[in-house]
């Protein structure tokens, strides 16, 4: 069997969550289409970055890939093995090869376990390291790799700073010797100076261990920095995917363009020169996404034909994959952006009566 270039291949992946209403009759009144038909492939030893705004389905996609959320449909192949149909026992042994790192290291670590027992737990669960000494050795090497001192072993998570806790989270994933790491917002809870330490650590580990990463983040600059390929999600689907440099120098999809132009750059000269594409309004609710192109309610390039009623597929254009009917004419500059009126978006669970909670006694007293 020849090894495929891709470690992970995802085809038409869907994750829909039922929306339930009613206290007595628990009925399903609709679905949140958190992930709605995603195709992507991650080459071995490379980093795939997934960006998009809050609620677009990034975390759900990451979790579905690891089978932590059962997908509603589609395929996930890991190293040639189809995971969605794998029996539970086989899946368990595959799990060792795919690990996850979370955003908030504090909430993902058990506060009552010291570092040694956090790290030993996984080894025991997967039966790695025959005896105590063997396990000690593996753990020691892992600590070195993530830059934690040996005395960390007897300490508890709250005794560490945010950056060190994230190192513990990374060590917990690494100790099992995985090939794929799904990192969900690995640095967004950290201070800028600490962020850089963790980003560099992830880079170094990839170089030395040949790891494959799926990095999920809303910070485009971080993603650009560590990714080889970047996928941009909007309301449960990819709208554009391209090699990192290409995506940032030549974004094609209107949403990608708007997203890029909104990211502040720490350089006054750049900031003063840039043109911003200001999007009107908020992200529509994924429970009730717009018809046709999901971006058409906010798209400054939207056209009177097709956009509102035909969902664009991801198509190869140049070196990118883009889901837009008018990608070529937008890229060439033939179509110009226009102004879009704001449409109203509501948070999920709209319309219920407000609960009475403890409230400031005076309206507006906080301002």
């Amino acid at each position, binding site marked *: 069997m020849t090894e495929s270039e891709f470690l992970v291949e995802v085809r038409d992946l869907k994750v829909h969550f039922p929306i339930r209403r009613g206290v007595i009759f628990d009925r399903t009144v609709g679905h949140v289409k958190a992930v709605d038909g995603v195709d992507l492939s991650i080459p071995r030893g490379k980093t795939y970055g997934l960006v998009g705004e809050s609620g677009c389905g990034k975390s759900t996609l990451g979790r579905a890939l690891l089978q932590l959320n059962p997908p509603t449909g589609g395929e996930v192949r890991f190293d040639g093995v189809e995971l969605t149909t794998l029996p539970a026992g086989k899946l368990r042994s595959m799990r060792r090869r795919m690990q996850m790192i979370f955003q908030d290291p504090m909430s993902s670590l058990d506060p009552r376990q010291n570092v040694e027992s956090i790290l030993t737990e996984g080894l025991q669960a997967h039966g790695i390291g025959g005896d105590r000494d063997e396990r000690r050795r593996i753990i020691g090497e892992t600590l070195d790799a993530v830059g934690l001192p040996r005395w960390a072993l007897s300490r508890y998570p709250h005794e560490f700073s945010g950056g060190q806790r994230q190192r513990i989270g990374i060590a917990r994933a690494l100790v099992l010797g995985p090939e794929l790491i799904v990192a969900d917002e690995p640095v967004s809870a950290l201070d800028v100076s600490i962020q*850089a330490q963790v980003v560099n650590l992830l880079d170094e580990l990839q170089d030395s261990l040949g790891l494959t990463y799926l990095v999920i983040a*809303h910070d485009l600059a971080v993603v650009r920095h560590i990714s080889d390929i970047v996928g941009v999600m909007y309301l449960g689907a990819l709208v554009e995917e391209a090699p990192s440099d290409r995506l940032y120098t030549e974004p094609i999809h209107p949403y990608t363009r708007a997203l890029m132009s909104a990211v*502040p750059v*720490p350089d*006054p000269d750049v900031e003063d020169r840039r043109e911003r594409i*200001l999007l009107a309004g908020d992200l529509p609710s994924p429970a009730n996404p717009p018809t046709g192109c999901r971006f058409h309610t906010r798209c400054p390039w939207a056209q009177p034909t097709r956009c509102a009623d035909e969902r664009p597929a991801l198509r190869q254009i140049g070196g990118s994959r883009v889901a837009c009917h008018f990608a070529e004419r937008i890229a060439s500059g033939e179509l110009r952006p226009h102004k879009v009126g704001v449409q109203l*978006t509501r948070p999920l669970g709209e319309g219920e009566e407000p609960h009475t909670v403890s409230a400031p006694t005076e309206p*507006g007293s*906080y*301002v």
Partner: protein
Amino acid sequence: MALLDVEDLSVTFARRGQRTVHAVDGVSFSVDAGEVVGLVGESGCGKSVTSLAIMGLLPKQPGLRVGGKAVFDGTDLLQLDDRSRRDIRGRDVAMIFQDPLSSLNPVIPIGLQVTEVLTRHRGMKGAAAEKEAAELLDRVGIPDPKRRLKEYPHQLSGGMRQRALIAMAVACQPRLLIADEPTTALDVTIQAQILELLKELVRDSGTALVMITHDLGVVAGMCDTVNVLYGGRVVETARRRPLFREPRHPYTVGLLASVPRLDAGRGERLNPIPGSVRDLLPWADGCAFAPRCARRVDECVGEPPALVLAHDGRSYRCVNPAPLPGTLPPPAAAGAAPAAEAPAGTAKAAEATAGPVPAPREEEKP
């Protein structure tokens, strides 16, 4: 005379059995009308406490001590009694927070909250107040404002809530607005909308804006003057361009080198600052940044470095600042290079404090 002059502001929290926290330790800055002044720094450096102290919104807990002055248009805000402070707050000075939900009353419709502000500070009532409220919501880009007035905060999205809060802040046409991380909880495309709104407010109404953020990109795009905070003190003050072009304080230099930039290539290694903000030296014993500083020299420890005033209003608190480009670096001081100097190994050595400086570490309560 500036519109707001904060002089030597200090805030300490003392608790029995615990170390006294010097959350703000002699902060001075000033803001003119129509000017945007940034307070930047990492978590815990005292940005929020500074703004809450100015507004008189710190929780009244035993052990809280506020010192110094915050002179707004001739009045020291810190000396006001609650009543006159409440009058000024809202009428002349307003504040918006990171989490709009916590500053909106959840059981009162948005409209009533806005008209209430109008009644209290501008004496408007009834239909006139309602009309003005709708106009304000419209101005901050809330669609269908007449209907929105009847809705409750939870019925609006995060971005719309932040707009509503800005509308309330704008309602009283404040001369000074303090914004504490107003966009940190929002997506970038929404952030861009809100920042644009704030810029408009400053441009059109001459409002003075204090912008608190940890995002150097936001600073680069918004602020006229920037104050960099570390460990409760301002360590560098400069106009926007000089700060980004030629940062002098090693902490500012370090921050700028650690931020990944959208316009930099894949694979360019970042230069993180070693250690974490918890590795603080108390200012009384020397430079608080010394445990993490690559330019540390012997003089840094012992007593706090004095504020150095440079030309065109720049100042920094450092005895061995980064040289200006084009000038000769000062002769390398012997023993000046702590292990942190070599950026290559920093990830490994990262959180290990270098050198002889005693740094409070894991003992602290988070």
